[in-house]
Protein backbone atom coordinates (compact mmCIF):
# COMPACT_ATOMS: atom_id res chain seq x y z
CA UNK A 1 0.00 0.00 0.00
CA UNK A 2 1.49 3.31 -1.05
CA UNK A 3 0.71 6.39 0.95
CA UNK A 4 0.64 9.79 -0.69
CA UNK A 5 4.05 11.38 -0.40
CA UNK A 6 3.60 14.86 1.08
CA UNK A 7 6.95 15.90 -0.35
CA UNK A 8 5.32 16.17 -3.76
CA UNK A 9 3.63 19.40 -2.66
CA UNK A 10 6.73 21.55 -1.97
CA UNK A 11 8.62 19.90 -4.85
CA UNK A 12 5.73 20.60 -7.19
CA UNK A 13 5.63 24.19 -5.93
CA UNK A 14 9.33 24.51 -6.68
CA UNK A 15 8.87 23.49 -10.31
CA UNK A 16 5.71 25.59 -10.70
CA UNK A 17 7.55 28.56 -9.22
CA UNK A 18 10.52 28.03 -11.53
CA UNK A 19 8.56 27.61 -14.75
CA UNK A 20 5.44 29.76 -14.42
CA UNK A 21 7.23 33.05 -15.21
CA UNK A 22 9.10 31.46 -18.11
CA UNK A 23 5.94 30.03 -19.66
CA UNK A 24 4.18 33.40 -19.33
CA UNK A 25 7.12 35.16 -21.03
CA UNK A 26 7.13 32.75 -23.96
CA UNK A 27 3.36 33.00 -24.47
CA UNK A 28 3.44 36.79 -24.27
CA UNK A 29 6.20 37.00 -26.88
CA UNK A 30 3.62 35.82 -29.46
CA UNK A 31 1.06 38.36 -28.31
CA UNK A 32 -0.20 40.83 -30.91
CA UNK A 33 -0.96 43.46 -28.27
CA UNK A 34 1.61 46.09 -27.41
CA UNK A 35 1.23 45.43 -23.69
CA UNK A 36 1.88 42.17 -21.88
CA UNK A 37 -1.37 42.62 -19.96
CA UNK A 38 -3.83 41.92 -22.77
CA UNK A 39 -4.05 39.09 -25.31
CA UNK A 40 -4.85 40.24 -28.86
CA UNK A 41 -4.11 37.03 -30.69
CA UNK A 42 -1.07 35.21 -32.04
CA UNK A 43 1.57 37.28 -33.81
CA UNK A 44 5.31 37.11 -34.44
CA UNK A 45 5.70 40.83 -35.12
CA UNK A 46 7.76 41.42 -31.97
CA UNK A 47 10.43 39.10 -33.31
CA UNK A 48 10.65 41.23 -36.45
CA UNK A 49 10.96 44.37 -34.33
CA UNK A 50 13.65 42.69 -32.27
CA UNK A 51 15.75 41.68 -35.28
CA UNK A 52 15.55 45.24 -36.57
CA UNK A 53 16.73 46.64 -33.22
CA UNK A 54 20.30 47.87 -33.65
CA UNK A 55 21.01 48.29 -29.93
CA UNK A 56 20.15 44.65 -29.27
CA UNK A 57 22.24 43.42 -32.21
CA UNK A 58 25.27 45.48 -31.18
CA UNK A 59 24.85 44.46 -27.56
CA UNK A 60 24.84 40.82 -28.61
CA UNK A 61 28.03 41.25 -30.66
CA UNK A 62 29.73 43.10 -27.78
CA UNK A 63 28.71 40.36 -25.35
CA UNK A 64 30.10 37.65 -27.61
CA UNK A 65 33.38 39.53 -28.10
CA UNK A 66 33.80 40.01 -24.34
CA UNK A 67 32.81 36.43 -23.49
CA UNK A 68 35.10 34.90 -26.11
CA UNK A 69 38.11 36.95 -25.07
CA UNK A 70 37.50 36.50 -21.35
CA UNK A 71 37.01 32.75 -21.81
CA UNK A 72 40.25 32.33 -23.79
CA UNK A 73 42.20 34.25 -21.16
CA UNK A 74 40.50 32.39 -18.29
CA UNK A 75 41.10 28.98 -19.87
CA UNK A 76 44.87 29.58 -20.10
CA UNK A 77 45.29 31.24 -16.69
CA UNK A 78 42.85 28.91 -14.92
CA UNK A 79 44.37 25.70 -16.26
CA UNK A 80 47.92 26.71 -15.33
CA UNK A 81 46.69 27.86 -11.93
CA UNK A 82 44.90 24.55 -11.28
CA UNK A 83 48.01 22.53 -12.14
CA UNK A 84 50.17 24.82 -10.04
CA UNK A 85 47.86 24.65 -7.02
CA UNK A 86 47.53 20.88 -7.21
CA UNK A 87 51.14 19.99 -7.98
CA UNK A 88 53.47 22.81 -7.05
CA UNK A 89 52.32 24.31 -3.79
CA UNK A 90 50.47 23.56 -0.60
CA UNK A 91 49.83 27.20 0.23
CA UNK A 92 46.40 27.84 1.75
CA UNK A 93 46.73 31.53 0.89
CA UNK A 94 47.11 30.87 -2.85
CA UNK A 95 44.15 28.47 -2.64
CA UNK A 96 42.07 31.23 -1.08
CA UNK A 97 43.13 33.78 -3.72
CA UNK A 98 42.15 31.35 -6.47
CA UNK A 99 38.61 30.79 -5.16
CA UNK A 100 38.01 34.35 -3.93
CA UNK A 101 36.54 35.72 -7.21
CA UNK A 102 33.91 32.97 -7.15
CA UNK A 103 32.70 33.78 -3.62
CA UNK A 104 33.18 37.54 -3.60
CA UNK A 105 29.88 39.43 -4.08
CA UNK A 106 29.90 40.78 -7.63
CA UNK A 107 29.29 44.36 -6.52
CA UNK A 108 32.49 44.35 -4.45
CA UNK A 109 34.60 43.22 -7.42
CA UNK A 110 32.72 45.73 -9.59
CA UNK A 111 33.47 48.78 -7.44
CA UNK A 112 37.04 47.59 -6.87
CA UNK A 113 37.71 47.35 -10.58
CA UNK A 114 36.04 50.70 -11.27
CA UNK A 115 38.23 52.30 -8.60
CA UNK A 116 41.30 50.54 -9.98
CA UNK A 117 40.65 51.45 -13.63
CA UNK A 118 40.06 55.05 -12.61
CA UNK A 119 43.18 55.19 -10.44
CA UNK A 120 45.45 53.96 -13.26
CA UNK A 121 43.50 56.07 -15.82
CA UNK A 122 42.55 53.06 -17.91
CA UNK A 123 39.97 53.89 -20.58
CA UNK A 124 36.73 51.96 -20.14
CA UNK A 125 35.30 49.90 -22.96
CA UNK A 126 34.90 46.31 -24.06
CA UNK A 127 38.51 45.56 -23.09
CA UNK A 128 37.95 46.65 -19.48
CA UNK A 129 34.87 44.37 -19.20
CA UNK A 130 36.83 41.54 -20.80
CA UNK A 131 39.70 41.84 -18.30
CA UNK A 132 37.18 42.02 -15.43
CA UNK A 133 35.30 38.93 -16.58
CA UNK A 134 38.56 37.00 -16.83
CA UNK A 135 38.94 37.44 -13.05
CA UNK A 136 36.00 35.21 -12.13
CA UNK A 137 36.47 33.14 -15.31
CA UNK A 138 39.96 32.16 -14.14
CA UNK A 139 38.61 31.15 -10.73
CA UNK A 140 35.90 28.93 -12.21
CA UNK A 141 38.18 27.28 -14.80
CA UNK A 142 40.77 26.62 -12.08
CA UNK A 143 38.10 25.08 -9.81
CA UNK A 144 36.72 22.78 -12.52
CA UNK A 145 40.16 21.72 -13.78
CA UNK A 146 41.25 20.95 -10.22
CA UNK A 147 38.40 18.50 -9.69
CA UNK A 148 39.46 16.86 -12.95
CA UNK A 149 43.11 16.77 -11.77
CA UNK A 150 42.07 14.88 -8.66
CA UNK A 151 40.91 12.02 -10.90
CA UNK A 152 43.90 12.05 -13.27
CA UNK A 153 46.51 9.35 -12.72
CA UNK A 154 49.82 11.04 -11.88
CA UNK A 155 51.84 7.96 -12.78
CA UNK A 156 51.52 8.75 -16.50
CA UNK A 157 53.35 12.01 -15.97
CA UNK A 158 56.00 10.25 -13.90
CA UNK A 159 56.46 7.66 -16.64
CA UNK A 160 56.85 10.43 -19.18
CA UNK A 161 59.53 12.08 -17.06
CA UNK A 162 61.28 8.76 -16.46
CA UNK A 163 61.40 8.16 -20.21
CA UNK A 164 63.31 11.40 -20.63
CA UNK A 165 60.65 13.98 -21.57
CA UNK A 166 61.25 17.49 -20.29
CA UNK A 167 58.78 19.15 -17.95
CA UNK A 168 57.19 21.32 -20.69
CA UNK A 169 56.97 18.28 -23.02
CA UNK A 170 55.24 16.27 -20.32
CA UNK A 171 52.86 19.13 -19.61
CA UNK A 172 51.84 19.56 -23.26
CA UNK A 173 51.71 15.87 -24.26
CA UNK A 174 50.43 14.20 -21.09
CA UNK A 175 48.95 16.65 -18.61
CA UNK A 176 46.99 18.87 -21.01
CA UNK A 177 45.28 16.08 -22.98
CA UNK A 178 44.18 14.33 -19.80
CA UNK A 179 42.78 17.62 -18.49
CA UNK A 180 41.01 18.52 -21.75
CA UNK A 181 37.46 17.59 -20.64
CA UNK A 182 37.88 19.68 -17.50
CA UNK A 183 39.28 22.62 -19.45
CA UNK A 184 36.38 22.48 -21.91
CA UNK A 185 33.83 22.26 -19.08
CA UNK A 186 35.48 25.14 -17.21
CA UNK A 187 35.67 27.27 -20.34
CA UNK A 188 31.98 26.64 -21.10
CA UNK A 189 31.13 27.70 -17.56
CA UNK A 190 33.27 30.85 -17.84
CA UNK A 191 31.69 31.64 -21.21
CA UNK A 192 28.10 31.32 -20.02
CA UNK A 193 28.81 33.27 -16.83
CA UNK A 194 30.37 36.07 -18.86
CA UNK A 195 27.42 36.20 -21.29
CA UNK A 196 25.01 36.54 -18.38
CA UNK A 197 27.10 38.87 -16.21
CA UNK A 198 25.57 42.29 -15.59
CA UNK A 199 26.84 43.96 -12.41
CA UNK A 200 30.58 43.95 -13.14
CA UNK A 201 29.96 44.85 -16.80
CA UNK A 202 27.69 47.72 -15.69
CA UNK A 203 30.46 49.24 -13.56
CA UNK A 204 33.38 48.64 -15.94
CA UNK A 205 31.70 49.45 -19.26
CA UNK A 206 32.50 52.60 -21.16
CA UNK A 207 29.79 55.01 -22.32
CA UNK A 208 29.67 53.29 -25.71
CA UNK A 209 29.60 49.54 -26.32
CA UNK A 210 27.11 48.20 -23.77
CA UNK A 211 26.88 44.42 -23.51
CA UNK A 212 23.54 42.68 -24.03
CA UNK A 213 22.71 42.44 -20.29
CA UNK A 214 23.23 46.21 -20.03
CA UNK A 215 20.94 46.75 -23.04
CA UNK A 216 18.32 44.49 -21.43
CA UNK A 217 18.66 46.34 -18.14
CA UNK A 218 17.93 49.70 -19.74
CA UNK A 219 15.03 48.17 -21.70
CA UNK A 220 13.49 46.71 -18.53
CA UNK A 221 14.02 49.89 -16.56
CA UNK A 222 12.68 52.10 -19.30
CA UNK A 223 9.41 50.26 -19.39
CA UNK A 224 7.78 47.05 -20.40
CA UNK A 225 7.89 46.36 -24.11
CA UNK A 226 6.90 43.03 -25.64
CA UNK A 227 10.16 43.15 -27.57
CA UNK A 228 11.83 41.95 -24.36
CA UNK A 229 9.50 38.94 -24.35
CA UNK A 230 10.69 37.99 -27.83
CA UNK A 231 14.32 38.50 -26.84
CA UNK A 232 13.76 36.51 -23.65
CA UNK A 233 12.18 33.64 -25.56
CA UNK A 234 15.07 33.49 -28.02
CA UNK A 235 17.67 33.62 -25.24
CA UNK A 236 15.75 30.93 -23.35
CA UNK A 237 15.75 28.73 -26.43
CA UNK A 238 19.50 29.23 -26.88
CA UNK A 239 20.35 28.48 -23.25
CA UNK A 240 18.00 25.48 -23.13
CA UNK A 241 19.64 24.03 -26.24
CA UNK A 242 23.05 24.80 -24.81
CA UNK A 243 22.37 23.15 -21.45
CA UNK A 244 20.81 20.06 -22.99
CA UNK A 245 23.72 19.72 -25.43
CA UNK A 246 26.21 20.11 -22.56
CA UNK A 247 24.30 17.47 -20.60
CA UNK A 248 24.45 15.04 -23.52
CA UNK A 249 28.14 15.81 -23.99
CA UNK A 250 28.99 15.19 -20.35
CA UNK A 251 27.08 11.92 -20.44
CA UNK A 252 29.15 10.92 -23.49
CA UNK A 253 32.45 11.80 -21.81
CA UNK A 254 31.39 10.09 -18.58
CA UNK A 255 30.90 6.81 -20.41
CA UNK A 256 34.57 6.71 -21.39
Amino acid at each position, binding site marked *: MRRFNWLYIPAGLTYLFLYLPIVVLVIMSFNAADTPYRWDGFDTAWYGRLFADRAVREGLINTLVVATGATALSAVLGTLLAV*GLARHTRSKLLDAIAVAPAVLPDIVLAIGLLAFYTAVQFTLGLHSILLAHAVFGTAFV*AAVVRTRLAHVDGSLEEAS*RDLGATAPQTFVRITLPSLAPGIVAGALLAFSLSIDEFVIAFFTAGPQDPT*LPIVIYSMVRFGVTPEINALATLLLAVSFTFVIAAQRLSRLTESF
Partner: protein
Amino acid sequence: MSSTLAPRRAARTDPGPHGRRAPRRERLVGRLATLGPGIGYLTVFMLVPLALVLSYTLFHRGRFGGVVHEASTENFTRVADGLYLGVIWTSVKLAGLTTLLALLLGYPTAYLIARLPRSWRTVALVLVVLPFWTNFLIRTYAWIILLNSEGVLNRALTGVGVIDRPLELLYTPGAVVGGLLYAYLPLMVLPLYSAIERLDPQLREASANLGARPARTFWSVTLPLTLPGVLTGCVFVFVPSLGNFVIPELLGGGRTVMVGNLIRDQFLKARDWPFGSTLALTVIALLVLLLMVQAWAARRLAGGNRA
Protein backbone atom coordinates in the same frame (compact mmCIF):
# COMPACT_ATOMS: atom_id res chain seq x y z
CA MET B 1 35.62 6.06 5.45
CA SER B 2 39.08 6.92 6.72
CA SER B 3 40.59 3.89 5.00
CA THR B 4 39.52 5.17 1.58
CA LEU B 5 40.91 8.62 2.29
CA ALA B 6 44.26 7.50 3.63
CA PRO B 7 45.99 6.53 0.36
CA ARG B 8 44.97 9.75 -1.35
CA ARG B 9 46.30 11.84 1.48
CA ALA B 10 49.53 9.87 1.40
CA ALA B 11 49.89 10.48 -2.33
CA ARG B 12 49.55 14.21 -1.75
CA THR B 13 52.25 14.56 0.86
CA ASP B 14 54.67 12.04 -0.67
CA PRO B 15 56.49 13.85 -3.50
CA GLY B 16 56.95 10.50 -5.31
CA PRO B 17 60.02 9.30 -7.17
CA HIS B 18 59.77 12.07 -9.75
CA GLY B 19 59.31 14.77 -7.14
CA ARG B 20 62.39 13.68 -5.24
CA ARG B 21 64.54 13.54 -8.34
CA ALA B 22 63.51 16.88 -9.84
CA PRO B 23 66.23 19.44 -9.19
CA ARG B 24 65.40 22.37 -7.01
CA ARG B 25 65.68 24.95 -9.77
CA GLU B 26 63.42 23.03 -12.09
CA ARG B 27 60.76 22.82 -9.39
CA LEU B 28 60.96 26.57 -8.88
CA VAL B 29 60.57 27.16 -12.62
CA GLY B 30 57.57 24.82 -12.69
CA ARG B 31 55.99 26.65 -9.79
CA LEU B 32 56.52 30.05 -11.38
CA ALA B 33 55.33 28.94 -14.81
CA THR B 34 52.08 27.45 -13.50
CA LEU B 35 51.18 29.71 -10.59
CA GLY B 36 52.80 32.93 -11.78
CA PRO B 37 50.40 34.06 -14.53
CA GLY B 38 47.16 33.26 -12.68
CA ILE B 39 48.18 34.60 -9.29
CA GLY B 40 49.76 37.62 -10.97
CA TYR B 41 46.55 38.32 -12.84
CA LEU B 42 44.36 37.95 -9.77
CA THR B 43 46.74 40.17 -7.82
CA VAL B 44 46.48 43.00 -10.33
CA PHE B 45 42.77 42.69 -11.12
CA MET B 46 41.39 41.58 -7.77
CA LEU B 47 43.75 42.09 -4.81
CA VAL B 48 44.95 45.55 -5.81
CA PRO B 49 41.38 46.77 -6.52
CA LEU B 50 40.23 45.36 -3.18
CA ALA B 51 43.14 47.01 -1.39
CA LEU B 52 42.19 50.27 -3.10
CA VAL B 53 38.59 49.98 -1.87
CA LEU B 54 39.87 49.17 1.59
CA SER B 55 42.11 52.25 1.62
CA TYR B 56 39.23 54.48 0.44
CA THR B 57 37.29 53.68 3.60
CA LEU B 58 39.67 55.97 5.48
CA PHE B 59 39.38 58.93 3.08
CA HIS B 60 36.49 61.20 2.14
CA ARG B 61 34.83 62.64 -0.91
CA GLY B 62 36.16 65.84 -2.45
CA ARG B 63 33.88 68.77 -3.19
CA PHE B 64 33.55 67.73 -6.85
CA GLY B 65 33.69 63.99 -6.32
CA GLY B 66 36.99 62.19 -6.34
CA VAL B 67 38.84 61.03 -3.27
CA VAL B 68 40.59 63.32 -0.80
CA HIS B 69 43.48 61.51 0.83
CA GLU B 70 43.04 62.66 4.41
CA ALA B 71 42.62 59.86 6.88
CA SER B 72 39.57 59.93 9.14
CA THR B 73 37.05 57.54 10.63
CA GLU B 74 34.16 59.70 9.44
CA ASN B 75 32.83 57.01 7.06
CA PHE B 76 32.52 54.45 9.79
CA THR B 77 30.56 56.75 12.07
CA ARG B 78 28.29 57.46 9.10
CA VAL B 79 27.66 53.75 8.48
CA ALA B 80 26.74 53.41 12.15
CA ASP B 81 24.11 56.10 11.57
CA GLY B 82 20.58 54.81 12.10
CA LEU B 83 19.50 55.28 8.48
CA TYR B 84 22.27 53.20 6.93
CA LEU B 85 22.26 50.64 9.70
CA GLY B 86 18.53 50.26 9.04
CA VAL B 87 19.16 49.55 5.35
CA ILE B 88 21.82 46.98 6.22
CA TRP B 89 19.44 45.33 8.68
CA THR B 90 16.67 45.26 6.03
CA SER B 91 19.10 43.63 3.59
CA VAL B 92 20.10 40.97 6.12
CA LYS B 93 16.42 40.30 6.90
CA LEU B 94 15.36 40.02 3.25
CA ALA B 95 18.37 37.88 2.32
CA GLY B 96 17.75 35.72 5.40
CA LEU B 97 14.07 35.27 4.58
CA THR B 98 15.01 34.36 1.00
CA THR B 99 17.46 31.77 2.31
CA LEU B 100 14.88 30.28 4.67
CA LEU B 101 12.24 30.00 1.93
CA ALA B 102 14.81 28.50 -0.44
CA LEU B 103 15.62 25.88 2.19
CA LEU B 104 11.92 25.08 2.81
CA LEU B 105 11.27 24.60 -0.91
CA GLY B 106 14.69 23.25 -1.81
CA TYR B 107 15.08 20.51 0.77
CA PRO B 108 11.98 18.46 -0.12
CA THR B 109 12.73 18.98 -3.81
CA ALA B 110 16.32 17.78 -3.47
CA TYR B 111 15.13 14.90 -1.29
CA LEU B 112 12.61 13.74 -3.88
CA ILE B 113 15.09 14.09 -6.73
CA ALA B 114 17.62 11.96 -4.86
CA ARG B 115 14.95 9.22 -4.49
CA LEU B 116 14.08 9.15 -8.20
CA PRO B 117 15.33 6.39 -10.52
CA ARG B 118 18.75 7.34 -11.88
CA SER B 119 17.65 8.31 -15.38
CA TRP B 120 14.89 10.60 -14.05
CA ARG B 121 17.24 12.18 -11.55
CA THR B 122 19.28 13.85 -14.28
CA VAL B 123 16.16 15.20 -15.97
CA ALA B 124 14.77 16.56 -12.71
CA LEU B 125 18.09 18.21 -11.83
CA VAL B 126 18.49 19.75 -15.28
CA LEU B 127 14.97 21.15 -14.95
CA VAL B 128 15.96 22.86 -11.70
CA VAL B 129 19.11 24.32 -13.20
CA LEU B 130 17.71 25.35 -16.59
CA PRO B 131 16.12 28.64 -15.51
CA PHE B 132 19.39 29.47 -13.80
CA TRP B 133 21.19 29.45 -17.14
CA THR B 134 18.88 32.06 -18.59
CA ASN B 135 19.64 35.72 -18.23
CA PHE B 136 19.18 36.93 -14.69
CA LEU B 137 17.58 40.22 -15.80
CA ILE B 138 15.07 38.44 -17.96
CA ARG B 139 14.11 36.16 -15.08
CA THR B 140 13.52 39.27 -13.00
CA TYR B 141 11.56 40.90 -15.81
CA ALA B 142 9.27 37.86 -15.96
CA TRP B 143 8.24 38.65 -12.40
CA ILE B 144 7.32 42.22 -13.32
CA ILE B 145 4.85 40.86 -15.86
CA LEU B 146 3.47 38.38 -13.36
CA LEU B 147 3.12 40.73 -10.40
CA ASN B 148 2.07 44.00 -12.03
CA SER B 149 -1.31 45.33 -10.88
CA GLU B 150 -2.62 44.56 -14.38
CA GLY B 151 -0.41 41.48 -14.52
CA VAL B 152 -1.17 37.83 -14.98
CA LEU B 153 -1.54 36.91 -11.30
CA ASN B 154 -3.85 39.78 -10.45
CA ARG B 155 -6.06 39.12 -13.49
CA ALA B 156 -6.24 35.44 -12.68
CA LEU B 157 -7.21 36.19 -9.08
CA THR B 158 -9.83 38.79 -9.98
CA GLY B 159 -11.10 36.55 -12.80
CA VAL B 160 -11.69 33.66 -10.41
CA GLY B 161 -13.26 36.08 -7.97
CA VAL B 162 -10.83 35.57 -5.09
CA ILE B 163 -10.28 39.33 -4.94
CA ASP B 164 -12.32 42.17 -6.41
CA ARG B 165 -9.54 44.74 -6.62
CA PRO B 166 -6.00 44.13 -7.93
CA LEU B 167 -3.51 43.52 -5.14
CA GLU B 168 -0.42 45.63 -4.81
CA LEU B 169 2.11 42.86 -5.48
CA LEU B 170 4.89 44.59 -7.39
CA TYR B 171 7.16 47.10 -5.63
CA THR B 172 6.84 45.44 -2.23
CA PRO B 173 9.44 43.74 -0.01
CA GLY B 174 7.60 40.49 -0.79
CA ALA B 175 8.23 40.96 -4.50
CA VAL B 176 11.93 41.50 -3.77
CA VAL B 177 12.12 38.28 -1.73
CA GLY B 178 10.24 36.44 -4.49
CA GLY B 179 12.68 37.73 -7.10
CA LEU B 180 15.73 36.82 -5.01
CA LEU B 181 14.27 33.38 -4.31
CA TYR B 182 13.61 32.86 -8.00
CA ALA B 183 17.15 33.93 -8.89
CA TYR B 184 18.99 31.75 -6.39
CA LEU B 185 16.78 28.74 -5.55
CA PRO B 186 18.80 26.37 -7.80
CA LEU B 187 21.91 27.24 -5.76
CA MET B 188 20.14 25.76 -2.73
CA VAL B 189 18.88 22.61 -4.45
CA LEU B 190 22.22 21.53 -5.94
CA PRO B 191 24.35 21.22 -2.76
CA LEU B 192 21.36 19.72 -0.90
CA TYR B 193 20.93 17.15 -3.63
CA SER B 194 24.57 16.10 -3.55
CA ALA B 195 24.45 15.81 0.25
CA ILE B 196 21.23 13.77 0.27
CA GLU B 197 22.28 11.60 -2.65
CA ARG B 198 25.47 10.60 -0.83
CA LEU B 199 23.49 9.48 2.21
CA ASP B 200 23.59 5.73 2.73
CA PRO B 201 19.97 4.45 2.51
CA GLN B 202 20.89 1.68 4.94
CA LEU B 203 21.15 4.28 7.70
CA ARG B 204 17.49 5.18 7.29
CA GLU B 205 16.54 1.51 7.08
CA ALA B 206 18.45 0.82 10.27
CA SER B 207 16.67 3.68 11.97
CA ALA B 208 13.28 2.38 10.79
CA ASN B 209 14.13 -1.16 11.87
CA LEU B 210 14.97 0.11 15.31
CA GLY B 211 11.44 1.45 15.52
CA ALA B 212 11.85 5.11 14.60
CA ARG B 213 8.96 6.75 12.79
CA PRO B 214 9.80 8.50 9.50
CA ALA B 215 9.71 11.94 11.18
CA ARG B 216 12.08 10.77 13.90
CA THR B 217 14.41 9.26 11.31
CA PHE B 218 14.42 12.52 9.42
CA TRP B 219 15.20 14.69 12.45
CA SER B 220 17.83 12.44 14.01
CA VAL B 221 19.45 10.74 11.00
CA THR B 222 18.80 12.37 7.64
CA LEU B 223 18.89 16.04 8.61
CA PRO B 224 22.04 15.96 10.80
CA LEU B 225 23.94 14.02 8.15
CA THR B 226 22.94 16.43 5.38
CA LEU B 227 23.56 19.60 7.43
CA PRO B 228 26.85 20.39 5.64
CA GLY B 229 24.83 20.55 2.40
CA VAL B 230 22.26 22.76 4.12
CA LEU B 231 25.00 25.14 5.27
CA THR B 232 26.56 25.31 1.81
CA GLY B 233 23.20 25.95 0.17
CA CYS B 234 22.37 28.69 2.67
CA VAL B 235 25.66 30.47 2.00
CA PHE B 236 25.16 30.11 -1.77
CA VAL B 237 21.76 31.82 -1.53
CA PHE B 238 22.48 34.36 1.20
CA VAL B 239 25.70 35.80 -0.24
CA PRO B 240 24.42 36.88 -3.68
CA SER B 241 21.08 37.98 -2.16
CA LEU B 242 22.71 40.32 0.33
CA GLY B 243 24.66 42.41 -2.18
CA ASN B 244 22.04 42.42 -4.93
CA PHE B 245 20.87 45.78 -6.22
CA VAL B 246 19.10 44.90 -9.46
CA ILE B 247 16.20 42.94 -7.97
CA PRO B 248 15.40 45.51 -5.24
CA GLU B 249 15.48 48.19 -7.91
CA LEU B 250 13.30 46.43 -10.50
CA LEU B 251 10.90 44.56 -8.19
CA GLY B 252 11.11 46.85 -5.17
CA GLY B 253 10.69 49.95 -7.31
CA GLY B 254 13.07 52.01 -5.19
CA ARG B 255 10.80 51.58 -2.17
CA THR B 256 12.72 48.62 -0.80
CA VAL B 257 16.33 49.73 -0.59
CA MET B 258 19.04 47.18 0.07
CA VAL B 259 22.69 47.79 0.84
CA GLY B 260 23.64 46.96 -2.77
CA ASN B 261 21.52 49.90 -3.97
CA LEU B 262 23.32 52.19 -1.51
CA ILE B 263 26.74 51.07 -2.73
CA ARG B 264 25.71 51.46 -6.37
CA ASP B 265 24.37 54.97 -5.73
CA GLN B 266 27.45 56.07 -3.80
CA PHE B 267 29.64 54.98 -6.70
CA LEU B 268 27.60 55.97 -9.73
CA LYS B 269 25.32 58.79 -8.53
CA ALA B 270 26.57 60.55 -5.38
CA ARG B 271 30.14 59.78 -6.43
CA ASP B 272 31.13 59.39 -2.80
CA TRP B 273 33.51 56.49 -3.34
CA PRO B 274 34.99 56.48 0.17
CA PHE B 275 31.56 56.04 1.74
CA GLY B 276 30.51 53.47 -0.89
CA SER B 277 33.71 51.56 -0.13
CA THR B 278 32.92 51.62 3.58
CA LEU B 279 29.45 50.19 2.94
CA ALA B 280 31.03 47.47 0.76
CA LEU B 281 33.51 46.68 3.52
CA THR B 282 30.59 46.30 5.93
CA VAL B 283 29.00 43.76 3.58
CA ILE B 284 32.29 41.88 3.28
CA ALA B 285 32.69 41.88 7.07
CA LEU B 286 29.19 40.43 7.46
CA LEU B 287 29.91 37.72 4.90
CA VAL B 288 33.27 36.82 6.42
CA LEU B 289 31.53 36.48 9.77
CA LEU B 290 28.92 34.24 8.15
CA LEU B 291 31.55 32.07 6.45
CA MET B 292 33.43 31.73 9.74
CA VAL B 293 30.26 30.57 11.48
CA GLN B 294 29.62 28.15 8.62
CA ALA B 295 33.16 26.74 8.75
CA TRP B 296 32.92 26.39 12.53
CA ALA B 297 29.56 24.61 12.28
CA ALA B 298 30.81 22.33 9.52
CA ARG B 299 33.88 21.41 11.58
CA ARG B 300 31.76 20.67 14.61
CA LEU B 301 29.45 18.49 12.56
CA ALA B 302 32.36 16.59 11.03
CA GLY B 303 33.82 16.08 14.51
CA GLY B 304 30.47 14.90 15.83
CA ASN B 305 30.05 12.35 13.05
CA ARG B 306 33.43 10.82 13.62
CA ALA B 307 32.93 10.42 17.35
